[in-house]
């Protein structure tokens, strides 16, 4: 259940995360990054209230849970105003919101970028104005304060491995995919495809169809794929909603137990489905915790003496994940479910 590589990054991340939490309590932290070039830039943070905002990708359970985790940490610290902004699944909206927040004088911006490159100029601009940016899930090519990531690519590889194991190393699977246009879609798909190649070359991916992140569409698409491939052994949903759509189909066709379905995200509905013996598994990440970590780092950045423009290389907090199946899903506490 540990990430298979990037171990160093992961450890560093955990260390930073704990340090951040500790630091938040203490109120001081030597933030990462080069110190050069900041001399002469005033410590701009000596103010009464701090403004923080989270620009999400679009309304969805994951960013909603992050936002909850972030708020949990920020609320008690009474001097921080926090709000959730919606990127409407459009790069230009996210960029415009970034601009607005920068001119509003936000201390820290949490950002779930739609694209690594597209948001980079905005992040650079924020840095120039002394605003720290913490990215969630998608890294940006412009170095920034911190990056807290669910492990999409390697997580998807592990899903492929677990799925292949459950299928006995052979058979046909279908991918219920999202439309192109956002990076996590590519990472979660490519990781899965590569994982299958690496761990279970005997398994054939016979269909890769777009179901728009949507449970209903996933039902329709899988129904159709099953007509062409009645011997289909399993389906991988790039998010849990689509996986649950696959479960609905399996249930209806009486394939439960025989048909392997894996999701990705680990939302409550998926975990319950696993417990009920319907969904085979999913990649679970404690998204609340991810939000809390980001928020902890943010408080340090906001109140600390470090200037945002100083970050030449950000720290990466790679979230630990769990390939949740019936065997281990019980270990996920109620409070960790989102």
């Amino acid at each position, binding site marked *: 259940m540990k990430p298979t590589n990037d171990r160093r990054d992961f450890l560093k991340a955990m260390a930073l995360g704990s340090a951040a939490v500790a630091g938040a309590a203490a109120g001081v932290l030597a933030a990462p990054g080069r110190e050069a070039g900041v001399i002469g830039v005033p410590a701009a943070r000596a103010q009464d209230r701090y403004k923080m905002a989270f620009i999400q990708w679009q309304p969805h359970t994951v960013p909603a849970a992050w936002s909850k985790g972030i708020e949990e940490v920020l609320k008690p610290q009474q001097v921080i105003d926090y709000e959730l902004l919606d990127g409407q699944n459009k790069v230009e909206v996210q960029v415009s919101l970034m601009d607005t927040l920068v001119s509003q004088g936000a201390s820290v911006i949490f950002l779930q970028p739609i694209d690594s490159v597209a948001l980079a*100029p905005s992040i650079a601009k924020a840095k120039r104005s002394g605003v720290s940016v913490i990215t969630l899930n998608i890294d940006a090519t412009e170095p920034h304060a911190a990056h807290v990531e669910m492990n999409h690519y390697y997580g998807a590889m592990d899903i492929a491995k677990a799925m292949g194991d459950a299928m006995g190393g052979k058979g046909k699977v279908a991918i219920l995919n999202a439309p192109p246009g956002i990076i996590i879609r590519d990472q979660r798909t490519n990781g899965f495809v590569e994982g299958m190649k690496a761990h279970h070359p005997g398994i054939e991916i016979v269909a890769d169809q777009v179901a728009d992140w949507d449970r209903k569409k996933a039902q329709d698409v899988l129904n159709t794929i099953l007509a062409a491939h009645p011997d289909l052994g399993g389906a991988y949903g790039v998010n849990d909603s689509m996986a649950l759509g696959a479960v609905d189909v399996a249930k209806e066709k009486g394939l439960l137990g025989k048909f392997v379905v894996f999701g990705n995200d680990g939302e409550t509905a998926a975990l319950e489905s696993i417990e009920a013996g319907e969904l085979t598994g999913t990649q679970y990440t404690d998204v609340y915790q991810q939000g809390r970590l980001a928020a902890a780092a943010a408080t340090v950045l906001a109140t600390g003496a470090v200037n945002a423009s100083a970050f030449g290389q950000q720290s990466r907090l790679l979230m630990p994940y769990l390939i949740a199946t019936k065997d281990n899903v019980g270990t996920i506490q109620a409070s960790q479910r989102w």
Partner: protein
Amino acid sequence: MKIRFSSAALLLFFAVTLAFFSVSAPRFATASTVENLMSGYAFVAILAMGQAWPILVRGIDLSIGAIVGLVGMIVFDLSLIFSVPGYVILPLALLAGALAGALNGVLIVYLHLQPFIATLATLAAYRGLTYSISGRQLVPGLTTTPIRDPWITGIETYFDLGGSIGLSRLINMPWFPLSFFIMLAVFALLQVLLLATRFGRDTCATGGNAEAARLAGIRVGAVTIAAYAISGICAAIAALIMVARFTTATEALGSGAELTAIAAAVIGGVSLAGGVGSMFGPAIGAFLLGAILIGLTLQGVPQFVQQIITGVILLAAVGYDRLLVLRRQRKLETAATGAGR
């Protein structure tokens, strides 16, 4: 007369909106907000001005968002995969936009398809084509490679006009993005095209009474195709500005932009009945929408509430336009009565 009057009303409404937020929203009346408005909505204004042309010929172009995506991806591929220099890419991008727009027009003119449905079909097709040619899928490494060609990224340059004329010493002046000047240039060009050229007159005639235009010897088909081509070129310009701003293009670039553009055009007084409109209205309409969204965000109004407010403002704008039309009709009736006596 009518155009001038409703433009004045729109400008007034824009001014009132700005004044309202300047007073009520913290940090609205700052140089950086103005800068954000200019850089964040110049391409929306260009899209809206482009959209005005199909509406002027009594059509509609739902495909402009998809054209933005397509042109964006063409630029991405040419620059990152084929390393084509920027000065070659720019005209190619405009050409691609023009062709995509013209194809809409051809479908409408030669296959007699209704504009709504023709551009709905190309909306799907152009987006599909964007996926097909996506360099992000063909060469996954490029997803994290920014476009660095100075000819393209140069579009996202800011000019300190205030500094150069010395105004900055008195007040804090915004830096003007090049995209804003591009928008002004597009505005000037299209406004002259619409108001001062034979083609502009022919466009209004085609939208106002297509049969009369045809019988007057106007090549209605060619005018219609040209109107859609202009819309396509504007989408291409918008795509270039967006790519410059983001230093990349995604497959989803521009999706949904058509609805914003239509809204801005209609707020700007372009009549869906065809034949009536200017370039000034759509441009102001776009910046009005932008100012409202930025202002509400600065006020801390939750975004879901903003969606509702945007809808209400759109309703108010068309309602106001309707009121003007009614008032004009009433005036006409009185005038006609006078003439009849």
